[in-house]
């Protein structure tokens, strides 16, 4: 407490950032290596499997050579890493297009979907959980709590693709309000985004409610009341940031699962994104494409996790020293 100018590396925030970036880097390396090894872990000759039994041995050999599959493993690994840095992710076995190009074409649609779903989940979950927390504080409104929690459990347990089917049937088939396939404009976003966001929103708001109830009983909230701040200021400025911190700690991984959730949702709605690509590529054994897309998804998840950490550090400076 007496040392006023700690060195840069001693600052908790800097150390926190360094730790998190290290973890990100290590995870990234594991991811890259896993996606490289994927091709080699497939039993048998993946190229033969991809091209089918009728393909000529010449063609198989030619493709094997193009992918460098006959080189020593370490050399292949080195080439793979080099390719990543130069944006060369090999070419698709079926369409012969560069994988990087396929990803470049497909990624924006997936990103739009994921970002919109994130935003919706948070915009719904935060006010809902916070308000429910305030309403049910100190064991008040038990019936409301029971209804909310039960509904949250049920909605949160419905997987996105099942919800998709129900939404398609009600809003697309029965009422014919919304398009059910393709990406054609704002209206076409509604169903996929809702289907993707509802489950995580339900779970997050449930966590937030519980955290809010706990935080509202905390001493510093009593202090805020002792300052006679208006109720809204007490809850929004003093309780909510603290409740959000613990909610993010518990529910941050959920946002990562939404990245993977896009795969299912895209396939229901024929969304022209990576999700459709990866499934058709797995079915078509187009391994270079699968490798590239898996890598993109993995990086997306890691990026989301890193963002959650940053949000945590901003919301609660203590989180930067807590785990030190």
């Amino acid at each position, binding site marked *: *407490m007496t040392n*006023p100018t700690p060195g840069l590396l001693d600052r908790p925030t800097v150390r926190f950032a360094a730790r998190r970036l290290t*973890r990100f880097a*290590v*995870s990234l390396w*594991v991811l890259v290596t896993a996606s490289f090894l*994927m091709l080699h*872990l*497939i039993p048998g000759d993946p190229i033969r499997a991809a091209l089918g039994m009728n393909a000529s041995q010449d063609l198989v050999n030619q493709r094997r050579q193009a992918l460098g599959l006959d080189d020593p493993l370490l050399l292949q690994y080195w080439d793979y890493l080099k390719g990543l840095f130069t944006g060369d992710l090999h070419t698709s076995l079926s369409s012969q297009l560069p994988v990087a190009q396929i990803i470049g074409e497909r990624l924006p649609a997936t990103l739009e979907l994921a970002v919109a779903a994130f935003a919706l989940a948070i915009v719904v979950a935060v006010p809902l959980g916070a308000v429910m927390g305030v309403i049910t*504080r*100190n*064991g*008040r409104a038990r019936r409301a709590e029971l209804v909310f929690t039960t509904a949250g*459990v*049920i909605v949160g*347990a*419905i*997987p996105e*693709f*099942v919800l998709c*089917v*129900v939404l*398609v*049937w009600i809003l697309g*088939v*029965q009422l014919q309000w919304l398009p059910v396939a393709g990406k054609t404009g704002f209206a076409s976003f509604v169903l996929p985004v809702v289907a993707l966001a509802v489950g995580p929103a339900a779970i997050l708001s449930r966590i937030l409610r519980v955290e809010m109830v706990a935080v509202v009983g905390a*001493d*510093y909230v*009593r*202090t805020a*009341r*002792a*300052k*006679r*701040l*208006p109720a809204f200021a007490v809850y929004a*400025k*003093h309780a909510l*940031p*603290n409740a959000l*911190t613990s909610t993010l700690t518990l529910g941050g*991984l959920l946002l*990562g699962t939404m990245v*993977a*959730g896009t795969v*299912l949702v895209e396939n*229901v709605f024929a969304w022209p994104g990576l999700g459709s690509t*990866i*499934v058709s590529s*797995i*079915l078509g054994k187009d*391994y270079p494409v699968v490798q590239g897309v*898996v890598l993109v*998804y*993995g990086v997306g*998840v890691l990026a989301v*996790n890193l963002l959650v950490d940053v949000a945590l550090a901003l*919301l609660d*400076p*203590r989180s930067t020293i807590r785990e030190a």
Partner: protein
Amino acid sequence: MARGSRWSAAMRTPIGVCAGTVLLVVLVLAVLGPIVWSSRASQADVAAMLQGPSSDHWAGTDNLGRDIAARVLVATRLSIELALLATAITVTAGLVLGAAGVLVGRRVARAVSAGVNIAVAFPALLLALFFAVIFGVGAQGGVLAIGLAGAPAFARLTQTLVAGIEQRDFVAAARIAGIGRVRVLVRHILPNIAEALVVNAAIGAGGALLAFAGLSFLGLGVQAPDYDWGRLLGEGLAGIYDQPIAALAPAVAVIIAGLALNLFGEALAKGFGLTTPRLKMGRPTPPPVHGAPAADGAVLDVADLVVTLPGPIQPVRGIDFSVGRGESVGIVGESGSGKSTTALAVARLLAEPARVEATRLSFLGNDLLTGSDRTHRRLLGTGLGVVFQDPMTSLNPTRRVGGQLAEVARQHDGLSRRSALALAVEKLRAVRVPAAERRARQYPHEFSGGMRQRAMIGMGLMGRPALIVADEPTTALDVTVQRQVLDLLGSIQREDGVALLLISHDVAVVQQVCDRVLVMYAGRIVEELPAAELAVGARHPYTRALMAAAPDMDTDRDQPLACIPGRAPGPEELPEGCAFAPRCSRASDVCRQEDPPLESDGPGRRTACWHPVIAPSIVDMETAGQGHE
């Protein structure tokens, strides 16, 4: 609780019963489904394609004229079977990875744990897709993929549980006795974490069911001609315009089975951790009928204050007192005497479900009983400062200290951000926080305990306080810091003319700082007297016992105040008559039958006792525990 009864306890909750029943039905269907409906499900009938529900086909028929209901029922077996197989893989792999710390050397275990920590950050679906590529498309590859995809999360859970058990003595003893690693794990560790593992396996099975449905839905799981719910769902979706029920029926089946497994796990978890504290019923006392006359010019004036909590119990049972301008009044008592509740009640900080009633509660001449919180907001916000017991938890950890102080002036005096912050720095300086300007920009966790308590006091000074209510302000602090904080409070009271209501269990603290003292016992004031008379002039046996038991400022404060024989009764277990009677050496029959009223017995004095000690008596002090003068 024996393990068996814990299981049944889990199953007695309404959710447990529902989930358990549904699960049982699903399992029975999984066994019987293919046997009973198999032929119906595969019987194509071109004449009856895409029919609506009828008595023949109560969910209609699909595009080949097959009975949809029968197909969904038959698919139960494969769906459940695959989910359980995948769960078995998850649990096995998760256990092995999670228990690596026990099974293998430290080096390897650390590597495993690092790997698990990285893998767990990736969503299971992504891992499942990864493994599906390796193991190939199909039911078998799907089981392996989903099973392994769940392993990191299960391993992480196992790790945590094992780490908790590993520290226990019996594990160490088993190790020292030379028992093999596998045996230690199976014999000594697993039985102790079995319940948590079972719960999570059940929830995991629900997840695996949904994941498998997803995989099949994408066409990566079960392949034709076999079908599970996921595949039915996928096929149904393709024809949703023609026959929506073909998609909806398997959707409903997936949801029901998934929820049943999930809730079954949750119910088990609740049952295993079941501890419901039973609330004791207490005797509510009728509110007292008389109140003391209003004190003139008092900062705070309270009459017949009663606080009721659900139960109902009454931690404060009708007390009167007032605090004059610039006066410093102490309230002492053991924990459970209602002193802190009193402080919070007069500061209007008790929230529901606590109920505060009084015949008079006025602050600076304003009646706090009428009008909403809103009407008194400014009056209390600027005129009443509150200092709480634990400075470690009373400041908001996510906001800078300066901002937390400045907020008061911004809210109530409409100051700009900048001038409010300047005022906050000034007040921090006034409460002797060194380097106030820099400190104002820091977060509470960068402050020491004593410094935080000063910041709290500074917060109380942000308005123009007429009264500071300090609830055990030094209890959580180091001995050396205690005195500094008390000195600070004392000097604010003397020099700035701010009245002080000081709540403490420590009679020496009150004696040092206060002009007048209220002694509380079991929710009532039992004696009021000038602080100067505490040492020799106390008349209530309880006050005398407190004094006798109190160390003076020089003795070790860490000793508990346990020298008064017996224990103070809580508000839920009050005896008849005088609440102190069971511990009182002077108690007589009348004491045990009737509660003595608090009556004035001299200028500035009140006592509630049938047999007050009029002259200082050595004998009483000795009976109270230890001789002390």
